[in-house]
């Protein structure tokens, strides 16, 4: 454990400064003189002035727990030394109450904070105080403020603290002086500090920023378990006792914190026992945020999802902890009265302060004791390469060496730790990895394994070879790779595979069916297999926090549950003015809307079968019911408003005027009951010229060919005749029909169907009335009369047309027709 100075006991924040008995003789000396009999013969006016300044400062630091005690206990101020010492002795509780990061010497505060009596690091009120006190310190550090007392403080800074912050003169020097006696056992530490404190300007702000960062980070996240080192670190910072969970990942590990820890080492760990002694636990809890993302949100991960995996650094820090002659840094005294976050700091200054460590760069030049990426990779490579490099290897030493200044002896723990290789063995020699392929379709899985086997052999050797020669490989550890993979796989999880991954599912389904068909056509039973198990449905619906009987809306809002600002109520506007354009647009929108609604119904109907297979027995009836309703709705949507039983021509045409509508109809036809389907086809035939005209741009009528042909094949002879009649319609309609590709195709389909009927079934009623014959005659007449150029080539020509025509026309005409038709087909 860290050794803590006995001054801890003093830092119970009793305002009586008699308790401040320090080990160092010099301090005692000052103490005797300060309080009680020790008369200081100095100019009382001067002293008063100084006192006033101190008062000023202390008022600033009012929240630091000075109270009136500190000031009150100052009877008289002697000479400079005494005054400074008195003030200093007064200050330590207060300044010590500043939960300064005493272990941030490079940032320059070491001189000040470390001189404070080592605090009771356990008794921290909370991060709020930390940041706030730091803020005050910064404000004091402002030369404008501090300069007031600076001039009168002549005290020579002691050796190590020579590079004190200029801005902190007023506060520092007394502390500095006080520190001098206490230096003896801290000397090994201090000589290393100068590099830090020398950068006096940015450090205070940067430290504040660090603290504030911590503070802000703290406030923003749920309480989390911490690595040993972190908890110690935070405790010293006044974050309160947190259960120390070694090895637990925190998101702060990559922060400047780690670099600082690496540099400086950790502050002493105070005894845990002091935790419960008379400390109000509420002091340590940060003030609840009104708009915390935690409240009213789904459970927040301790480690956000995007966090990279933790580097194996905890061992190193543990070693640090256990090192007996550890860092002689005094952790600051606990600050008793929690104060709210300082309002004086404007957001701008806060930002500026917060940004400075970032500007400086998170990594100081010194390398920490832990294995950096490169070193780890090199270690890995050395193993891969196969030749030993003598333990940790030369490149690893600088990392260990860099830490030497902060420890009494050589870093044997590091050497030992670096000896055993990192957990990830050489990637090339791992046995074949068992991958989790449960999310894949079994067919897919099979294909994959085949593929991998075939590729595994020839790739492995060359890859390993190459990697052994590359000294920089394996910078990305196995763990990191798995982490990235995990994130990518998480994105693939889905609760509704048919929704999320429709094409994948369908593709494999089709492949399976095809294979089954090819494999065993003898088997008559064809069971539809259940598709691969997907991730279980996890309900992540967020329910906003509700309070029964509360008046008004919740005040808790966060990024996960933004508060509803406006209660918007939808009201239909009654528009009096009707512009023609608007009407047209409205109508179009109406059509589109209808089409969309029908589409969703249609999709449900189409998916019915699949869902039927998947649902358990109990729910199947309900599903069937729903299916029926859906189909009903679909049919009814095509019907006219007044006549409930007939397919509405107008409606159909309206729908078909939109490209999507045509597609919809083509998909819908198979699902309609046959009279309805026939009616739709009739409507199409009847309105073909109009439709053709509207379709000129899109040219998508041909989508309808297939479903229409299916319908036609199911038609009775009379309906077929009717259809043909409809197609011919008024005068000249046929000509228009022939101009259009779809029209020609439709015509051919009808004719071919008729022919099929006639040839297959001798009892066919097609010839019962002369309609059919007449119609065919008119068709042939038209076909002959129409110029070939305007005759649109059909999608396909049924083969039995010739036989049809041969029944009705004479040879000459037949030949003409043949030529025309052939020409049409050739010219396609």
């Amino acid at each position, binding site marked *: 454990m860290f050794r803590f100075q006995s001054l801890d006991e003093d830092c119970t924040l009793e305002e009586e400064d008699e308790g401040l008995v320090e080990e160092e003789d010099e301090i005692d000396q000052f103490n005797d003189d300060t309080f009680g009999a020790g008369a200081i013969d100095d100019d009382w006016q001067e002293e008063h002035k100084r006192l006033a300044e101190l008062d000023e400062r202390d008022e600033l630091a009012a929240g630091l727990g000075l109270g009136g005690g500190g000031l009150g206990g100052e009877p008289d101020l002697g000479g400079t030394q005494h005054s400074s010492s008195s003030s200093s002795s007064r200050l330590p509780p207060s300044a010590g109450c500043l939960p300064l990061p005493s272990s941030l010497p490079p940032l320059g505060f070491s001189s000040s904070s470390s001189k404070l009596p080592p605090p009771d690091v356990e008794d921290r009120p909370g991060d709020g105080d930390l940041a706030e006190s730091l803020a005050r310190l910064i404000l004091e550090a402002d030369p404008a403020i501090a300069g007031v007392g600076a001039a009168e403080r002549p005290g020579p800074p002691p050796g190590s603290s020579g590079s004190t912050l200029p801005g902190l003169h007023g506060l520092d020097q007394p502390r500095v002086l006080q520190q001098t006696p206490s230096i003896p056992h801290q000397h090994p530490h201090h000589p290393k500090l100068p590099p830090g404190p020398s950068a006096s300007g940015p450090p205070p702000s940067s430290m504040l920023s660090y603290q504030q960062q911590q503070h802000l980070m703290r406030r923003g996240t749920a309480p989390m378990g911490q690595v040993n080192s972190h908890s110690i670190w935070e405790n010293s910072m006044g974050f309160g006792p947190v259960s120390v969970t070694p090895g637990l990942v925190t998101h702060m590990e990559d922060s400047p914190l780690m670099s600082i820890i690496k540099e400086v080492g950790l502050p002493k760990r105070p005894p845990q026992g002091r935790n419960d002694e008379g400390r109000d636990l509420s002091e340590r809890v940060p003030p609840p945020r009104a708009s915390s993302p935690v409240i009213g949100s789904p459970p927040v991960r301790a480690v956000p999802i995007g966090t990279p995996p933790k580097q194996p650094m905890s061992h190193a820090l543990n070693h640090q902890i256990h090192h007996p002659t550890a860092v002689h840094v005094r952790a600051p005294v606990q600050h008793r009265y929690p104060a709210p976050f300082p309002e004086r700091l404007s957001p701008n200054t806060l930002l500026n302060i917060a940004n400075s460590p970032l500007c400086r760069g998170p990594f100081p030049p010194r390398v920490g004791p832990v294995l950096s990426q490169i070193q780890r990779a090199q270690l890995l490579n050395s193993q891969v390469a196969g030749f030993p490099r003598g333990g940790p290897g030369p490149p690893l030493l600088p990392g260990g060496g860099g830490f030497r200044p902060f420890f009494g002896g050589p870093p044997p723990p590091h050497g030992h730790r670096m000896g055993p290789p990192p957990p990830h063995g050489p990637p090339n020699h791992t046995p074949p990895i068992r*991958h989790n392929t449960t999310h894949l379709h079994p067919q897919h899985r099979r294909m994959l394994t085949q593929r991998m086997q075939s590729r595994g052999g020839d790739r492995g050797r060359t890859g390993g070879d190459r990697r052994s020669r590359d000294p920089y490989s394996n910078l990305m550890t196995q763990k990191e790779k798995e982490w990235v993979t995990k994130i*990518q796989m998480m994105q693939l999880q889905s609760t509704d595979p048919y929704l999320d991954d429709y094409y994948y599912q369908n593709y494999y389904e089709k492949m399976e069916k095809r294979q089954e068909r090819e494999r065993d056509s003898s088997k008559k039973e064809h069971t539809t297999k259940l598709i691969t198990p997907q991730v279980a449905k996890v309900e992540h619906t967020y329910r906003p926090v509700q309070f029964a009987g509360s008046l008004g809306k919740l005040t808790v809002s966060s990024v996960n549950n933004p508060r509803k600002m406006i209660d918007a109520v939808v009201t239909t506007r009654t528009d009096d003015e009707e512009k023609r354009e608007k009407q047209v647009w409205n109508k179009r929108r109406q059509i589109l809307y209808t089409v969309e609604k029908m589409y969703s119904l249609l999709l449900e109907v189409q998916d019915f079968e699949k869902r039927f297979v998947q649902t358990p027995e109990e729910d199947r009836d309900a599903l069937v019911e729903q299916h029926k309703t859906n189909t009903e709705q679909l049919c009814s949507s095509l019907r006219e408003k007044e006549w409930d039983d007939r397919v509405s021509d107008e409606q159909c045409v309206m729908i078909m005027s939109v490209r999507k509508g045509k597609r919809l109809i083509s998909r819908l036809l198979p699902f309609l009951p046959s009279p309805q389907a026939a009616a739709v086809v009739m409507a199409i035939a009847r309105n073909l010229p109009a439709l053709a005209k509207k379709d000129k741009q899109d040219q998508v009528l041909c989508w309808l060919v297939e479903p229409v042909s299916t319908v036609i094949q199911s038609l009775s002879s009379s309906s077929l005749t009717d259809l043909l009649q409809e197609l011919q319609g008024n005068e000249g309609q046929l000509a228009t029909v022939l101009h259009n590709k779809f029209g020609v195709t439709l015509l051919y389909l009808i004719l071919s169907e008729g022919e099929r009927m006639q040839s297959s079934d001798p009892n066919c009623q097609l010839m019962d009335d002369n309609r059919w014959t007449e119609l065919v005659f008119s068709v042939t007449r038209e076909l002959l009369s129409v110029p070939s150029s305007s005759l649109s080539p059909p999608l396909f020509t049924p083969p039995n047309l010739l036989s049809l025509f041969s029944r009705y026309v004479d040879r000459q005409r037949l030949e003409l027709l043949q030529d025309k038709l052939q020409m049409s087909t050739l010219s396609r």
Partner: protein
Amino acid sequence: MNYVPGTASLIDDIDKKHLVLLRDGRTLIGYLRSIDQFANLVFHQTVERIHVGKKFGDIPRGIFIVRGENVVLLGEIDVEKPCDTVLQQVSIEEILEEQRLQQQTKQETEKVKMQVLKDRGLSIPKADNLDEY
């Protein structure tokens, strides 16, 4: 294939030499060392290759971190495959000079074009290269 069977991932491309084309038109060649879930890429021993006409030049750049959204395409370079190309490698100074000249001529033609259009009272707003919206 190793880590995410059935899907594609950059994991298997790690430590291999790659060529990446960025949205600003730069071409980088380097060893892909690390990736993340946004396909941010870390390149090592990166070389920026500038092509002008039939010549090209390589500028060594060191370590590059490319933000994932700026990648147009990324492909592995087969180091073993024989490189038979008509392109001719030149020195850095030369290629930069060539590039400068190319840019210059382009600007001049652009200027002339704009002038001509302006004379006719037309104006084609210049599309900002970086804005796609």
